[in-house]
């Protein structure tokens, strides 16, 4: 028991890999055996994360990093396997472990090379979770990159028509971004001689001899800062480096899209919170306004672009850019307030940061839900062109109701998760970046436009008779996938404090 509880993060982190190894032994013909094995391999980390959730709240290290483990990994360059969680990573860990089994359940239509598909999915889960728990810069990068490869193959092998283009674009964009990140990480390692984040948090911001080509330290740090920002901005994604996202999301298989939108985008935002803000407080403050402007651009252009789409899945994809904009806006406020002693500003920053983290969670729920619902209709109709639907509510009442519910969660209807988080971001950002926030509100309005447009084109109006008798309503198995997302979204909407408490504890300790 001691051994178990001392290494709980390692168990969570590597259980999916272990599951993938077990999958190798299951005969490829037994489809059911494969699915059940993979599901169990992803449910165990979920159960452990729930346990971790409660254990964290009574842990003596909270609100700092609890459940730390440190093992020698690569002593030649002073990198160690160092993991630990705080309130923010634990929320994202819960999101990852929750969405993975759901995405596996949503992949029932995958039959070709099922074993490989499931194994890649489990590797992907480990990669994503690793980013959230890493406390070593190099290990962070290791997991950051590891997640790329399974996703590339998921899109490339099981994706839609333009999968080759989409997968290559996805990997080249992300790797291009990672390149700067890698170089900056190497430089930090070369200058400080350590990759341990807890040490770097204390030493790196104050370091004064980071010389490079005789440039002043400040410039060198600003370059490193931008290298980090670009990598995370591509992943998050922030306008104007978002263009890989609509292609990748649209071409990915349903389960892949759920994970892409639900978790992978959060890696970028998490990078800002975990690395950029604490490692570069001065630079963050200096460029916070720019970040806020880009966030507003993402919100507005994301909404406009979504409103202009003809393809249902592309519409949902663009909506992710819109929603992630709010996360970035909240982070920009935190960046601006870093090191400030003004209590009013601190208060705003705390609210905005809380909102940003909660928005990551609620967007994870709603985006995964929306992509799943698009997948459900696509599996039957084999089209995603909005114009070809119409009046489907008449023949699919249950599906229609669920779609309306998820759309409202995504739109930010009070009483559902999205409202709480977006309200908090806007409330926190308003006193700091008043004009930018006001403009972003315009984007929020257009969020309503595209969501209602999609609902109208799919569900309302006269029934397109070509579907009559061809479409079945959502099945019980499919409801099982969407129900947890709906329940959680509702739960956060009416009683957010169960999750806010854990986030807030950590955020409070920063300012």
């Amino acid at each position, binding site marked *: 028991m001691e051994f178990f509880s001392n290494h709980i993060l390692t168990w969570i982190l590597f259980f999916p890999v272990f599951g993938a190894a077990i999958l190798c032994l299951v005969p490829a013909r037994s489809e059911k055996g494969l699915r059940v094995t993979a599901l169990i391999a992803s449910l165990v980390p979920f159960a452990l994360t729930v346990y971790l959730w409660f254990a964290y709240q009574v842990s003596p290290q909270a609100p700092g990093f609890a459940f730390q483990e440190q093992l020698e*990994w*690569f*002593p*030649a*360059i002073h990198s160690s396997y160092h993991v630990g969680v705080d309130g923010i990573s634990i929320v994202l860990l819960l999101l990852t472990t929750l969405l993975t089994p759901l995405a596996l359940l949503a992949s029932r239509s995958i039959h070709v090379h099922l074993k490989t598909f499931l194994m890649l999915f489990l590797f992907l889960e480990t990669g994503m979770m690793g980013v959230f728990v890493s406390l070593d810069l*190099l290990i962070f990068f290791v997991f950051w990159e*590891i997640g790329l490869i399974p996703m590339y193959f998921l899109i490339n092998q099981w994706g839609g028509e333009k999968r080759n283009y989409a997968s290559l674009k996805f990997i*080249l964009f992300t790797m291009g971004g990672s390149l700067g990140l*890698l170089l900056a990480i*190497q430089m930090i390692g070369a200058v400080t001689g350590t990759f341990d984040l807890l040490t770097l948090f204390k030493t790196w911001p104050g370091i004064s001899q980071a010389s490079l080509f005789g440039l002043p330290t400040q410039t060198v740090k600003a370059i490193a800062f931008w290298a980090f920002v670009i990598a995370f901005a591509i992943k998050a994604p922030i306008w104007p480096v978002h263009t890989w996202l609509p292609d990748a999301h649209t071409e990915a298989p349903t389960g892949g899209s759920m994970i892409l939108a639900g978790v992978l985008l959060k890696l970028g935002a998490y990078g800002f919170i975990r690395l950029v803000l604490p490692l570069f407080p001065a630079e963050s403050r200096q460029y916070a306004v720019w970040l806020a402007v880009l966030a507003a651009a993402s919100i507005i252009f994301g909404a406009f672009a979504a409103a202009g789409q003809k393809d249902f899945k592309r519409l949902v994809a663009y909506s992710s850019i819109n929603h992630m904009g709010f996360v970035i806006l909240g982070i920009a406020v935190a960046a601006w307030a870093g090191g400030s002693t003004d209590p009013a500003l601190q208060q705003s920053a705390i609210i905005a940061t809380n909102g940003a983290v909660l928005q990551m969670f609620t967007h994870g729920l709603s985006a995964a839900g929306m992509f799943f619902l698009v997948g459900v209709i696509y599996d039957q109709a084999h089209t995603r062109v909005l114009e070809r639907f119409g009046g489907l509510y008449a023949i699919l009442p249950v599906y229609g109701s669920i779609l309306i519910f998820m759309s409202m969660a995504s739109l930010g209807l009070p009483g559902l998760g999205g409202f709480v988080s977006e309200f908090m971001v806007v409330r926190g950002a308003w006193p700091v970046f008043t004009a930018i926030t006001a403009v972003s509100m315009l984007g929020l309005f257009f969020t309503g436009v595209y969501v209602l447009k999609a609902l109208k084109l799919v569900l309302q109006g006269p029934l397109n008779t070509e579907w009559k008798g061809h479409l079945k309503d959502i099945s019980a198995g499919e409801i099982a996938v969407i129900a947890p997302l709906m329940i959680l979204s509702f739960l956060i909407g009416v009683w957010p404090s169960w999750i806010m408490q854990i986030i807030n504890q950590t955020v409070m300790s920063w300012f």
Partner: protein
Amino acid sequence: MQIPTLSLLIFTPVVAGVLLLLYPAQKRTLIRVTALVSALITLALSVFLFFRYDTIAAGYQFMEKLDWLPSLGISYFVGIDGIGAAMELMAGLVVLSGVLVSWNVEDRPREFFAFLLFLAASVFGVFASLDLFQLFFFFELAVFPKYLMIVIWGYPKTREYGAMKLTLYLFLGSMVALAGSLAIYFASGMHTFNMLELENAGFSMEVQRLWFPFIFIGFGVLGGLFPFHSWAPDGHVAAPTAISMLLAGVEMKVGAFAALRVGLMLLPDGMRTWAPLIIVLATINVVYGAFIAMIQTDFKYVIGFSSVSHMGLVFIGFATLTPEGLTGAGLQMFSHGVMTALFFSIVGMVYDRAHTRNIKELGGLARFMPMAMVGFVVGGLVSMGMPGFSGFVAEIPIYIGAWKSYPLAAILSAISIVVTAAYILLVVRRVFFGEVPTTLSAGVKDVTLADKVVIVMLSLVMILIGIFPSLLVPVIQAGVKHILFLVGGA
């Protein structure tokens, strides 16, 4: 009595090779089994050496010495440091893989396996040489099996050209290196080829500066150093599969290793003087090699140029003269050796079945040979420096070393990471996925059991080192410690 492990390692393949030539040619099974057994013995010996190498004591171990020509100060003197131990292990793995993928050689298998084993003996010998003359002896010993194997069993269209080009380049390079070595032999005034004594010869600055480029670049030709790399792609492509694996996997490391052992370790001040030039050449290697690899239409040339690109990182690591850079260079020599052997073995498997290496005429092969696809993807991930694989573990210290001494080299050569990712992914997609071209619509046979053993063995080594670098790093570091001592602090 101490067992002469290193001598056994070097002479087992020689004895087996001679034995093979005495067999009647029609006894194919006996020939193959003999070759396999001797390759297994050498692998076992190299594994033994690797794990028994004492990383705490470091220095040269398993030493054996016999006077050979005392009047000239020449002796048979073997021993390995940490880098040597890692190289012997890598060579052991590649030699066994080479024997396995050649299992079904139809044309004169007796001579084929005999020459293969002679080549193996020569590389085991170089990595263990502590006598300069003996190092040259083993270095040159490789020429005749390499040349003959390319000319006899190579790709019919280019084998004469490839073999001739390779031999002339390498011959010229080693002559230049020999001139440099003789010069320092006489300059030392010690009348010995014993490298342990030469290490302490205290060569004057002028001698070091003058003769370093002869030795380092002369040996560097075999390591594929720009602009003397062009033998490599042509030679690799012309060679039969097992020889491509040994050439790119082990022989290029022999070049880099000799440049390290004789150039850097005997003339450290020369290295310090010439480091900027080496950095420039090596950075060109890295970036230029990657771009050229991207535009190749021949599957095998892609891998050939990727070797040129990756070897550049080894030379960058040397030239940084930092503990990280040198450790990384050692790791990269190991990792690249295993990786490129895997690549060439798979290229060979594809070519044997599809009878073409033109990327445009290939496609959808994952359907017929899934294991080959998996192996190629693993190799590709190592090649693009993906974390979790040995390539990352090797490249990170090289880059950190470069950041400390030549940051611009780190930034410029990092371009190659994205380019490498692009060409590897494109090749994977075009060769293994997508539509099966009509010429191959009848399907091709899956890889053989021996091929699978090779793929699994080499892939596992790279993944294990990627996840647990501490399996390999301490041994390399033990070697680096001594180099840093010679270089003087740093």
